[in-house]
């Protein structure tokens, strides 16, 4: 067993887990943070995406040991006491998700992008979401939602998705 101490959503968390535990298993099984999903378990689908030290990574491809001492943000840490994260609001407004299984991963990939690049173009958004597969809806509304969230974050007036789709 290996002792792990990591910061998850701003809170120091500890666990004692077998060495072969992935970060995804640590988050889901030990910390009950089930927002990150297991889709393919080999880093193809992005359903397990979390943010580690500011970078979006596949939690299924990282050992818990490798996360020791690092700062993790999961989807559960995205809403604060007053409001949603603008991405969550924009995704809800745009109806960007259908079954929703890919959603937490997509939103975290988008957050990692917007944290670095407050005004991404469509190509940059596509590039940032390339590691998140969706089988239901497609990516058009997601891209709209990310653009809308970026506008909110930049303090610009929001263009409602109803206006975009017309």
């Amino acid at each position: 067993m290996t002792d792990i101490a990591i910061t998850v959503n701003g809170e120091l968390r500890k666990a004692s887990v077998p060495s072969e535990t992935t970060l995804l298993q640590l988050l889901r099984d030990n910390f009950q943070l089930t927002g990150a999903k297991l889709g393919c378990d080999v880093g193809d689908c992005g359903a397990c995406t979390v943010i580690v030290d500011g970078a979006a990574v596949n939690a299924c491809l990282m050992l818990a040991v490798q996360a020791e001492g690092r700062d993790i943000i999961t989807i559960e840490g995205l809403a604060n006491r007053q409001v949603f994260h603008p991405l969550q609001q924009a995704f809800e407004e745009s109806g960007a998700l259908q079954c929703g299984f890919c959603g937490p991963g997509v939103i975290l990939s988008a957050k990692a992008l917007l944290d670095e690049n407050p005004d991404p173009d469509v190509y940059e958004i596509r590039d940032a979401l390339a590691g998140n597969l969706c089988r239901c809806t497609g990516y058009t509304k997601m891209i709209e939602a990310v653009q809308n969230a970026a506008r909110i974050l930049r303090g610009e007036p929001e263009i409602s998705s109803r206006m975009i789709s017309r």
Partner: protein
Amino acid sequence: MNERVKLQEADRVEAKTPEDLRRADEDLRLPAIAPREQYPIDVRAPEAREQTNAVGQRATRPDNRLQGLGQLKYIADFSFPGMLFARIKRAGIAAARIVRIDTSAAEAMPGVMAVLTGSEIPVNSFGPSYQDQPVLAQDRVFHAGDGVAAVAAVTEQIAEEAVERIVVEYEPLPAVFDPIEAMRDDAVRVHEDGSNIYTSKTIRKGDIEKGFADSYRIFEETFRTQMVEHVPLEPHAAIADWDANGRVTIWSTLGRITLGRADIARTLKMPMSRIRIAGTIVGGNFGGKNEITQEPVLALLSKKTGRPVKGTYSREEEFLATTTRHPFIMDYKTGVTKEGRILARKIRLVLDGGAYCSWSETTLGKACILSSGPYKVENLLVEAFAVYTNKTMTGAMRGFGAPQVCFAYESQMDDIARALDIDPLEIRLRNAFDEGAISPTGQVLHSVVVKESLAKAAERFGWEARTP
């Protein structure tokens, strides 16, 4: 708020993490995730008895908010006290007789609570049309993805390891993988009792001989489509809990829970009234979660162990052991006038059905009806066959056979247009259904707007302005 204050007090006694706090004070129950209050609670619900407009309103999905917050609970996110984890051993051989299954090494492993084989299943067959699929292969293996044994263990890791330690001795049998080959009289039989052609359908309309005789030209072509897996992002998952009153509750990603319950009742040989199925939020179905898979196995493992048992398919199992879209082999023979009007069409469809029927009957029927396309075809013959092969079973997937035939008839439409030097849009307009047209099976069609749709689409994407 109260808990926050407690937290700060506890902090002072050098507690560094929530886990420390739990150890320091068992009464202090910190939520595993941040408290619910932090989410904006502006629930958009009308007052009681308040009439709201539905038409003209913009609707958002009620689960959208939970999805974005990561709070929607899929089966993988459920756990129950004492819950065990199941894994199924896959055959890995397309056709074989099972000589012996030795589960002793697996059963001896610490942490393994139960092992199940096909012989322990009360009625070891199921299927929505024909009950030709074993829950776990018993005497014979029909395709490589067949389950041959299952394990319930205290962790997924132990269950996986235990499955590796199950030894199955096979006597390999000849297999058939090509549906055309499988249709021959001397072909290897996938299932011992009867022909590989397990369902067929014929549609006859008008007089095709005369139609072909009157034709200016006849076009013949074979079109093939491939096998497609649904790949829902969420793999198949279920939890079964067989309680001490002899009732079983199953949480499942199953889309058709009522049908599923009937199938489960059959396999477990118990009345439906003792089976409760909770259909949960599903992370993508697309037709691939329309029938039962591992539910009876989990139920029986739960019965054996007296504990809830959870099973989640791996991504490999999604490809190997769940239904897929039928590969079609489609022979199209079409006679047309000089102007490109279809006079006669003869179609043969061969559906690669894989090892079990699943939803092949439905797919076959729908494919037949739609095989001549949205076009007026007075003289038509459609013959269609669904054929067993020793491959992953094929079943329902978005469109039930419609996309496959659409690929064929539209491809041939383009071939004809090119050969007769007719504009591809024009040839479709000349043949398309009008209001009141009659489908190949005699259905009178209303609200037919094929031509209008085509014209509008052509206008929108600038068909006139194209560069050839």
